[in-house]
């Protein structure tokens, strides 16, 4: 396999893994066994996958409530994630956190924190520790368009700037905070201008174009690793399912069919598939086998999670304190 083909397929694999995991969660959610809120990333796979493509195992990512894509793109364990959603002891947080508290320390996924803006500050703190401990690692922080409305973003961006910390802020703009559209929450100016005011390097890309995302992310990661300070990447994307839950929500009327269908056409997976077709003669037969291998892995992870034991009631009060 050529290096280019390997690269394109590894990016594709990340996107597909996210899509297929999320669809499987949506398909099984009605069984009432994953009894925690889920904020699915369907539609936003290109942004997460592209951003993580050039991170090293020693780099870390932070995220918030909609974190499945980031966790999976950074290499988090599918089994531990699904077991967490099922509330099992083998879950990445032992069933104590649910979907909004994913972590995988081996993969460099710091604990996701579900209150908007919080993990921006702790992610900058991770970068501060890298600088203090002279570790050449990068802290990538995923956030949404709503997070720039929080004061903590500006405080964290300011600190990362004055200390020239190895941070990459990745702002996925999906145009809604829950169901409230961007234009009623913020003035009509590019979000990148906020970051520029803090003297962050900025770049803007189509978040549903995984190749475009990985290109600007690579530049930002290189800057961070070379001690040239933090960057802010703005990625336009779109959430295809409801804010929280497995369903589509078109009937509720907060977004138009026209807008929705436009983004359906911009599906990051379909887009990458056509790149593969053009560049490496990828066929539907290749694709079917490729998808099936991922599906098999996901099915095995579901079986593991479903059959795993629950934590014992007597463990509920453990780990409040170290001793």
């Amino acid at each position, binding site marked *: 396999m050529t290096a280019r083909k390997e690269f394109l397929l590894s990016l594709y694999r990340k996107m597909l893994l996210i899509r297929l995991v999320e669809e499987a969660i949506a398909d099984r959610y009605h069984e009432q066994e994953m009894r925690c809120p889920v904020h699915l990333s369907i539609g936003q796979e290109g942004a997460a996958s592209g951003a993580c493509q050039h991170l090293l195992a020693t780099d870390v990512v932070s995220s918030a409530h909609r974190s499945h894509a980031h966790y999976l793109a950074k290499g988090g364990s599918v089994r531990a994630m699904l077991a967490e959603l099922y509330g099992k002891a083998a879950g990445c*947080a032992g069933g104590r956190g649910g979907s909004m508290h994913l972590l995988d320390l081996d993969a460099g996924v710091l604990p996701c924190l579900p209150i908007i803006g*919080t993990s921006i500050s*702790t992610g900058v703190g991770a970068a501060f520790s890298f600088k203090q401990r002279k570790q050449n690692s990068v802290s990538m922080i995923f956030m949404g368009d709503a997070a720039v409305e929080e004061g903590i973003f500006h405080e964290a961006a300011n*600190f990362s700037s004055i200390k020239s910390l190895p941070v990459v802020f990745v702002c996925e703009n999906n145009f809604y905070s829950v169901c409230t559209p961007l234009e009623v929450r913020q003035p009509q100016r590019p979000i990148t201008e906020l970051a520029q005011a803090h003297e962050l390097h900025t770049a803007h890309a189509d978040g549903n174009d995984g190749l475009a995302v990985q290109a600007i992310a690579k530049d930002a990661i290189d800057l961070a690793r070379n001690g040239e300070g933090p960057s802010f990447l703005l990625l336009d994307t779109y959430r295809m399912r409801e804010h929280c839950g497995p369903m589509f929500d078109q009937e509720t009327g907060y977004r138009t069919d026209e807008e929705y269908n436009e983004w359906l056409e911009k599906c990051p997976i379909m887009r990458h598939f056509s790149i593969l077709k053009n560049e490496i003669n990828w066929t539907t037969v290749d694709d079917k086998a490729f998808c099936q291998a991922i599906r098999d892995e996901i099915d095995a992870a579901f079986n593991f999670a479903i059959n795993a034991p629950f934590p014992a009631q007597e463990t509920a009060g453990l780990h409040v304190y170290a001793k």
Partner: protein
Amino acid sequence: MPNDNRTITFAEAICEATDFCLNEDPSVYLIGLGVSDPGAIFGTTRGLYQRYGDERIVEMPTSESALTGVAIGSAVLGQRPIMTHQRVEFSLFAFENIINTAAKMRYTTNGKLSVPIVIRLIVGRGWGQGPCHAQSLESVFGHIPGLNVVMPTTAHDAKGMLISAVKDDDPTIFIEHRWLHSTTGHVPKDGYEVPLDQTRTVSTGDDITIVASSLMTLEAMLVAQVLGEVEIGVDLIDLRSVRPLDMSQIHISVAKTGRLLCVDSGWTTYGVGGEIIARLAESGSDIFRTPPRRMGMADYPSPSTRALISEYYPFPDQILAQCLEVLQLPASQNDAAKSAMEELQKNRRVDVPNADFSGPF
């Protein structure tokens, strides 16, 4: 130890503890607005910037919310930050990170990660500081599982408990009363640890138990002294830690005296004294010989003018009055105690920590 009788201030003790930890462990750093400024956080950080430089003594932007998250994020990956705010109230911007992130990290990671952070919060009082610079919020922090909440009284405990807090793997809210900074005590020069989970018995007696913390312990000591002069014995217990709450000595003491007065540094409603009384009541209905009492700040914000604060804080004469109501002594003993207190407090002004104090904060 040969240097055990050396006398230094509470503020110097805090500084020595910080110096000890910085010197001992390269992962310790100090962060706060003013840690390297001329005031040096009321002298508690003096000289540290010159000794350790700006990588270890970190001036911070006025961003309490995010910088608490930064300190937490660094602590998760192995650093041991000491964060300092010049007033308790400045930390209120960081409640989200303190309650949701620091206090829950160990729990929500199933024991994989901890947040060894110390947040020093200073309680103001007097010289007109007013409603937003003079709050003692230990019961608010004490409500949260996952936090240690301590409030030492003596210079000795300040040094030993700060060192323990830095070494502890869990987040510690370290509450210092501004009026304690200038008090002095015997403090060993070397580093030492004082446990974060134990009360300290200040005086012993059979007649009444007083549980106090921080500055209120010093006020209660005057009451114990005066009652001693009329042959009434006071078990005075310095709480030292609000969370965890060490009930062992309190329980033994009240079982002996049957009488209890809790003197809180904060408001009484949902306060520390209420929690102590509830726990004793739960342990058995016959422990109290007389109904337990609690005191604290009056149930309104702290006014700025000195004209309005003489009933705001529990002053020694008011603490004494509560004790006398509980004790029901003969009139002669009662009056003798009151006179002794009047004599002791005759030169006291309500809005300054000591006669030398001339403002502003």
